[in-house]
């Protein structure tokens, strides 16, 4: 198998760039991934613990406003709260700009794609106004530092993250026989939400070898996982169900409830053969095709098991397998990836994005994702975005993509490139004869650039 640099950048990276050389080998890609997270340093986004301070201020200002209800100070308190909320929404838009710029300017596109993959695999969202901006800081803290390590460390980081505990209702789940439940009758509720999703989505997979009893037992084992906005994650033994819990025929705990018991169950789940298959298959779908080559999946799953979920090993298995390199472009880029790779092909300068006011940045680069079917950071459930090509290319979503390609590039660049050169920059040798013809035959630069970005050759990878 001959390594194809352009295909590597298109299929496994952020797309071709006229400024940056694609990787020279699979080893080169893995080497970069092992090295420093340069994009995160150059285009910073706050970590979760920094950003959660904003949630505390949010609640404080909201409380002050409701204390002023009906009093003369209400107007000022209302303004303080409203201004802060607006500033925080603006900050979220700014983080989105940074995220896009990472895709535009990185030499380590494989890393950015893995960030998207794992942030989606471990989807977590804020369900109230104070936490709804937290998805980007969550990815920064939970995903980026762990994506080249072991799967179990990534799993533990996600499952103990305050945003996940909030999103899947773990925070207030108390063991029915726990001290907290006895003391407060109302708090007697065990919540299975996180336990179920850990088994179904994060580890074994929906067809995995677990039963409702395992869900229930894992939910009891999870009791005590909680957080507060000041100190972040905490384990509250008073909420934990006393006694041992049996998950997949193995008993955990029994003595004093401790976090360690939860973590060892998570490690065992992470190393389970069903998890190896589930993760291998999902990565293969994400990088190659909706229905991946079974041999590729087997190959990756075997490596996963042999390395106890060593993710670098699994990635290496993916990149060395011939089925990953079939030249035909298959997967449709989801809207964010589509936008980001378009900006990369256009080589949108950092300074241009930095100069955009939040409202404009939103109109150009964030809000257009919604009519494309991807309301960014708000997928409809913990299972994240669809991998199916048909989910993205509906009439109204394709229309939204075409509208963006025809209108946005002109707003992002001072001078649009000559479409004939742009076809080369965006697609390299993957610019087929139809693309080259459209680039020549378009009546304006705007339309030429828009058509190249609209081509299936650019929208697939």
């Amino acid at each position, binding site marked *: 198998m001959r390594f194809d640099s352009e295909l590597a950048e298109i299929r496994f990276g952020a797309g071709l760039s006229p400024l940056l050389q694609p990787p020279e080998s699979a080893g080169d890609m893995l080497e970069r991934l092992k090295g420093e997270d340069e994009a995160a340093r150059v285009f910073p986004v706050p970590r979760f613990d920094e950003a959660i301070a904003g949630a505390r201020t949010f609640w404080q200002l909201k409380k002050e406003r409701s204390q002023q*209800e009906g009093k003369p100070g209400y107007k000022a308190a209302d303004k303080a709260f409203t201004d802060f909320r607006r500033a925080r929404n603006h900050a979220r838009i700014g983080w989105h700009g940074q995220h896009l710029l990472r895709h535009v300017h990185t030499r380590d596109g494989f890393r950015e794609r893995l960030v998207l993959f794992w942030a989606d695999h471990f989807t977590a969202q804020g369900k109230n106004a104070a936490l709804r901006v937290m998805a980007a800081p969550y990815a920064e803290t939970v995903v980026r530092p762990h994506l080249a390590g072991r799967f179990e460390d990534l799993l533990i980081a996600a499952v103990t993250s305050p945003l996940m505990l909030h999103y899947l209702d773990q925070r207030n789940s108390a063991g029915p026989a726990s001290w907290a439940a006895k003391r407060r009758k109302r708090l007697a509720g065990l919540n299975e939400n996180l336990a179920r999703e850990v088994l179904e989505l994060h580890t074994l997979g929906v067809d995995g070898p677990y039963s409702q009893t395992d869900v229930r037992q894992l939910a009891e084992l999870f009791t005590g996982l909680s957080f507060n906005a000041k100190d972040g994650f905490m384990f509250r033994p008073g909420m934990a169900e006393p006694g041992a819990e049996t998950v997949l025929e193995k008993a955990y705990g029994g003595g004093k409830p401790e976090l360690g018991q939860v973590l060892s169950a998570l490690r065992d789940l992470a190393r389970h053969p069903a998890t190896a298959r589930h993760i291998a298959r999902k990565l293969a779908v994400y990088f190659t095709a909706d229905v991946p080559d079974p041999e590729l999946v087997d190959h990756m799953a075997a490596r996963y098991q042999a390395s106890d979920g060593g993710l670098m090993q699994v990635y290496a298995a993916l990149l060395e397998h011939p089925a990953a390199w079939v030249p035909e472009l298959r997967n449709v880029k989801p809207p964010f990836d589509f936008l980001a790779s378009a900006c990369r092909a256009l080589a949108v300068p950092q300074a241009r994005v930095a100069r955009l006011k939040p409202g404009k940045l939103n109109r150009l680069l964030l809000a257009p994702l919604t009519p494309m079917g991807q309301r960014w950071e708000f997928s409809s459930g913990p299972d994240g975005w669809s991998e199916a090509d048909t989910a993205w*290319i509906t*009439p109204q979503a394709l229309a939204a993509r075409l*509208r963006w390609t025809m209108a946005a590039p002109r707003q992002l660049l001072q001078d649009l490139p000559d479409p004939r050169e742009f076809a080369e920059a965006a697609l390299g040798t993957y610019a087929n004869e*139809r693309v080259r*013809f459209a680039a020549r035959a378009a009546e304006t630069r705007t339309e030429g650039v828009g*058509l190249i970005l609209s081509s*299936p050759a650019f929208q697939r990878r």
Partner: protein
Amino acid sequence: MNLTRRSLLTRSAALGCSLAASPLLTPVTLAAAPWDTRLVVIILRGGMDALDVVQPYGDPDYAGLRQSLAGGPDAGSADLDGFYALHPGLAPLLPLWRAGQLGFVQAVSTPYRDRRSHFDGQDLLEAGTAGPGQAEGGWLNRLLQLIPGVEARTAFAIGQERMLLMEGGAPVSQWAPGAGLMLSPQAERLAGLLMEEDPLFHAALNEALELTRQDLSFGAGGGGSDADDMMMSMMTAPKGKAHTEVAAYAAQQLRGDSRIAAFSINGWDTHHRQANGLKNALGRLSESVLTLQSGLGPEVWGKTAVAAVTEFGRTVRENGTGGTDHGTGGAMLLAGGAIRGGRVLGRWPGLAEADLYDRRDLMPTADVRSSLAWLLHGLTGAGRSGLETDVFPGLDMGSNPGMLL
């Protein structure tokens, strides 16, 4: 393949012919509709406060529960029947009430209880099941699966919002008015050429162009810098009067061969200063209903039923911030020439402490799915057994409340 400008033009002429013959693009006038009545389902997302919309001012306990949200004729609401009064936000619909074309069902809910989550509540409302994961897709789609002769244009999901109730195995159309694609003639030809070899993209492009042509909000369309500016403003989801565009688009489709349309109206989650929020939301609902009426014209409106449903009602007591919190029992709005209106249906449970659900919410006295099932039965002729097993699995429809003429 050797492409030149000339061969492109020849090819696109051929493409034009094949478009007309494509089954996906069969002109609507040719499609056969399996039935003749029209149904519009509006999902009111956020949880509409039944007590503030259809105000039970005749209930002795009502006045004590609401302070800044006090209702009834003394507060300027129109009396409906001596017991209920209508929130002023729906006053534009009073002529319909008097004509017997507006009605309500009070104290209804889905089987969803206790958790009071919008997402789960909406999922269940649209799934039409008693619990999560009990059937594939949504109840409107499962209805379509029961009826032979259904085509893609028979039912339309409209707007940017995902409409789970329309999802499933039966073909449906989806479109957001204003989502149109205005390309210059040359760009349109070239886009077609680019996508021709990729069936997924090609079918979606042709459908988008066809729906744009049928979408009256796009005038004559085509070309020039005005079109570019319009594209720019259209990159994001439309704001402002989007709801009337959605309703107008629904009416336009239903005047043709479509029989069912579904869309959402958001903004009912009134935890804070409900007096403002609910007035605005009801304004959107009123305008949507009136836009449907005018868009459909008297003849089609005469055989139309509009049903507006919400995931749950709200707490009977006003909270500390001039609003209400997530509750249980809610209300359903019915409108259209096909309904027997001028009445508030539903068994009223009372508002005394002991009458409430969980001592805080309006007690649901009937399953909202039962009202919906009777509507579907009357409008499409769908049989009771199919409705109780396939469309709303496990539902007991009970006796016919006679909602339709």
